[in-house]
């Protein structure tokens, strides 16, 4: 790796995917870093919305939770949580929903609920929170997660939220007309769904990452795009801006930040 970490290029690649006029539903962690990096670089007018009701917020420090004080202080306005889910999410006003995941399959279905059986789980995870409706009501979904075999699995133990279901037109056949997962950013590569099968294929490897490395860390048989690209390395501006954000955040939260 050059002079940046795997987590940094993941966040930077995610930020690059966001556009100036996007209205973005921001999850905590890497999604929050990516969205605020985009806002402070190429997409200054992007609208960031957090589940807690804060609309068009501009935090200087990455929030530890979706309800941090700074989100409200810097927001255009703060609405109640019922209004956030009814008017803004269900009302179809969000162009991009940014989700993290504990477990993900090749169709972008997500499990953040349990490992093992639901009623007698090996590991009880935090749960879906807003994800089940974010995944189906936003225009499209960007996913970011650490690239591990434990995370990218062939079969999920539980579908917390819907991606492309069983692939092909399964999502549409379930009456869900929004685009679903259109981008997966990990710390090794970028994936996009195949037009027909809707299964993720690797479209870009981060600098220094090999195909084998991706396959070794993925729970399903990885398909690589014919025109497999290499993710452009972070620019000085991207890196400096991200590191400023993370430094401010670490200082504010009294510990180092992983992304």
């Amino acid at each position, binding site marked *: 790796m050059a002079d940046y970490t795997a987590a940094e290029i993941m966040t930077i690649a995610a930020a690059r995917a966001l556009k100036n006029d996007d209205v973005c539903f921001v999850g*905590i*962690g890497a999604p929050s870093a990516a969205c605020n990096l985009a806002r402070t670089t190429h997409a200054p007018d992007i609208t960031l919305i957090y*589940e*807690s*009701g*804060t609309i068009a917020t501009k935090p200087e420090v990455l*929030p*530890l*939770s*979706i*309800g*941090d*004080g700074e*989100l*409200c202080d810097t927001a255009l306005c*703060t*609405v*109640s*949580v*019922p209004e*956030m*889910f*009814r008017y803004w*999410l*269900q009302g179809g006003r969000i162009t991009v929903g940014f989700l993290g995941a504990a477990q993900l399959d090749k169709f972008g*279905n997500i499990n953040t*609920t349990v490992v093992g059986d*639901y*009623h007698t*789980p*090996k*590991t*009880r*995870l*935090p*749960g*879906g*929170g*807003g*994800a*089940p*409706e974010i*995944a*189906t*009501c936003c225009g499209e979904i960007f996913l970011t997660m650490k690239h591990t075999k434990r995370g990218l699995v062939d079969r999920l133990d*539980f*579908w*917390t*939220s*819907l991606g492309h*279901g069983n692939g092909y037109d399964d*999502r549409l056949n*379930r*009456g*869900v007309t929004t685009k679903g997962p259109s981008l997966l950013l990990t710390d090794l590569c970028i994936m996009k769904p195949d037009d027909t099968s809707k299964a993720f294929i690797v479209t870009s490897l981060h600098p220094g990452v090999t195909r084998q490395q991706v396959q070794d860390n993925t729970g399903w048989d990885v398909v690589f795009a014919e025109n497999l690209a290499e993710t452009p390395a972070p620019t000085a501006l991207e890196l400096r801006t991200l590191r400023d954000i993370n430094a401010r955040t670490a200082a*504010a*939260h*009294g*510990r180092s930040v992983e992304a």
Partner: protein
Amino acid sequence: MARIIPLKDAVAEIVQDGMTIALEGFTHLIPYAAGHEIMRQGRRDLTLVRMTPDLIYDQMIGMGCARKLIFSWGGNPGVGSLRRLRDAVENNWPHALEIEEHSHAAMANAYEAGAAGLPFAVFRGYRGSDLSRVTTTISSVTCPYTGEVLATVPALRPDVAVIHAQKASKRGDVLIEGILGVQKEAVLAARHSIVTVEEIVDSFDGLHPNACILPHWTVSAIAVVPGGAHPSYAHGYYPRDNSYYLAWDKIAADRATFREWMDRHVINGM
């Protein structure tokens, strides 16, 4: 009519074993002080309702107050999972905990329907999610005009709603500012309510006409508890104590350490 009384009396009068109680506050204004008082009074067999079970429910579950939990995300925000919640669900410690798991949208709509006096909430939800397979209260209705099938959940009507707010007027009207979460809906949906506040002010004259205010006749009891939301924050009063949240992960990881910490800081702390 909202009586302004000590927290101890409010909890003693209003919260009884076996009740369904909601302590709401979406990262902001979480009623920790009231939750600690409920634990000190040794309430048992409670059904705890909360969209985002935070440390306060991790503590109450760990202390054996809860029979059941209705929730939509249970974690230590930005830090990790809730150790006591996992111990209860994975190992039935201190005893089995029934859970009814929903999505945020479902619970937000369920509180809204409760405040609106309806028996159920309708929303475009759970599509393609296994939650509708494991949570038996999830059903559906068909739109009479388009034929679309939409998800339903029962309205949330807690016996008691407990919230923390910035101010109450002398007459007992309550002002909530900043991230509002579902606090107004929880109070209006509940049969009784306890509101802890940072301070009492003479009146709310001159406030913004559309500020979020609960009139005194919608609140059962008010207790003045400055710092009552700590370690969460109160917009305009004090910031979030992130170190408390970070430290909690270790404290709650071990049953003995947890129990010892709770005895020292909560049960005998006050």
